[in-house]
């Protein structure tokens, strides 16, 4: 460590020439000139190492006392290195510029740390912050922490508390999430189970309440299936619940032209680069607009990061243009049927949730170059849905 400090502050190895070198050394000590590595030269002179201020003082003492003369043997350290570079004005200008830029950079947000969120994604909080003017590259002086925190609570309703702490060029965002009140189960509520879709009941299981229908009954949307009124004894009301499985039918149709336009890439591409520096975009090209009449534009944003994971407020934007020409493309009937039927089945499965497709039939028709595929599916699914009863029951 001492050697490093010596290199930074600079050290001078000097030779004290006099008849009695012990006397010269004692004079140095008496004048509070600290030195190290004292050795005697073959000529009998003292050779020692002092700091730069020590050397200046040593010269003064030598001049005042006249007891010895001082000769420099070696200079080492950063001050001497910089002194040699003193005429390299561009270097010093660059260093000054670097220092100024470093100072200015502390006025901008370089990092945003979000803590305290468990279910709300960090990306959602960061997006809301961005909408409120806080992003990497924003000037720290422009961030009004309290008003932004209030707006954030409105923008992200899942949060109950948020605070922004500006710590130099880093913003610490501490959030607390709302604990949502669980939906209370009210056993006395007049709630019945109703059909949310038409169908034929296959199985009805009333966990609470009274079943109004039986397997084999056909029901329409909105029909009450399990009543909240239980006509047992004196009769009483309860919060009806249960599952009602039924056969349901779907008929879906999709159409598509058999002949479509297809992109054929010519192989000609062009890439443009821009830099977003603290929210300001700097284009590194001269001519804007699309370079080709028909082209795809693929834009990639790459935010520069430091090796430790710190994000810099610099984003490199690359826009790649790929030219294409439109060419006619035709599907065969089989290809189109396969494509559309897969889409139709996927739609039905998404609609029935936990249920399953018991049977299905596909039919297709081509008219004026347009293929139409119709899916008729028979499904089994849960159609019961709890809902407050309008009337007073029985």
């Amino acid at each position, binding site marked *: 460590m001492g050697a490093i400090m010596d290199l930074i502050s600079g050290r001078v190895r000097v030779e004290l020439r006099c008849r009695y070198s012990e006397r010269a050394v004692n004079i140095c*000590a*008496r004048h*509070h000139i600290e*030195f190290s590595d004292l050795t*005697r030269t073959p000529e009998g002179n003292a050779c020692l190492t002092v700091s730069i201020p020590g050397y200046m003082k040593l010269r003064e003492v030598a001049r005042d006392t006249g007891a010895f003369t001082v000769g420099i043997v070696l200079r080492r350290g950063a001050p001497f290195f910089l002194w040699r570079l003193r005429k390299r004005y561009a270097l010093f200008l660059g260093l000054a510029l670097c220092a100024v830029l470093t100072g200015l950079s502390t006025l901008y947000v370089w990092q945003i740390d979000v803590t305290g969120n468990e279910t709300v994604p960090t990306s959602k909080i960061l997006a809301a912050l961005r909408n409120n003017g806080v992003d990497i590259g924003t000037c720290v002086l422009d961030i009004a922490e309290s008003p932004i925190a209030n707006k954030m609570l409105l923008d992200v309703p899942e949060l109950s508390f948020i605070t922004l702490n500006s710590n130099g060029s880093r913003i610490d965002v501490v959030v607390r999430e709302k604990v949502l009140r669980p939906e209370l189960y009210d056993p006395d509520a007049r709630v019945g189970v109703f059909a949310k879709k038409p169908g034929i009941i296959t199985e009805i299981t009333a966990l609470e309440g009274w079943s109004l229908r039986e397997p084999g009954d056909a029901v329409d949307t909105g029909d009450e299936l399990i009543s909240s009124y239980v006509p047992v004894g004196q009769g009483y009301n309860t919060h009806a619940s249960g599952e009602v499985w039924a056969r349901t039918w779907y008929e879906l149709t999709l159409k598509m032209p058999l002949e479509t336009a297809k992109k054929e890439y010519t192989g000609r591409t062009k890439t443009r680069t821009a830099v977003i520096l603290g929210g300001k975009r700097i284009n590194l090209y001269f001519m804007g607009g699309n370079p080709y009449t028909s082209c795809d534009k693929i834009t990639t944003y790459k935010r520069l990061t430091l090796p430790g994971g710190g994000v810099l407020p610099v984003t490199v934007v690359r826009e790649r243009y790929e030219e294409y020409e439109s060419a006619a493309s035709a599907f065969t009937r089989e290809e189109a049927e396969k494509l559309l039927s897969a889409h139709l089945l996927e739609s039905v499965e998404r609609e029935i949730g936990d249920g399953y497709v018991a049977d299905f039939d596909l039919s297709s028709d081509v008219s004026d170059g347009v293929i139409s595929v119709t899916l008729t599916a028979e499904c089994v699914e849960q159609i019961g849905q709890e809902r407050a009863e309008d009337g007073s029951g029985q």
Partner: protein
Amino acid sequence: MRKKPSGRAALLRVSEIFDIPAEAGAGAPRVTITGDRRVHIENHRGLLEYGPETIVAACPGVTVRIRGAGLEISAMSDLELVVTGRIAAAEIVS
């Protein structure tokens, strides 16, 4: 007639009575030897002789002589002196 003690001797005596470290109270030299490689002398009054085999330092009331091989004064200020090298002996000469 009993000889009157000198100022330094009186200070040393007072330091002993009040159990004050003599190097602090009376400015007595303090010599610390670390292994056979380093000697640290505090409260010295200057060098009388130095060389690779002998270093002699003047101290209040005594002289400290370090003998050895490859001796070097690695640091020195008006109060402290550090000698490094292979130390063979450290003598106090009254």
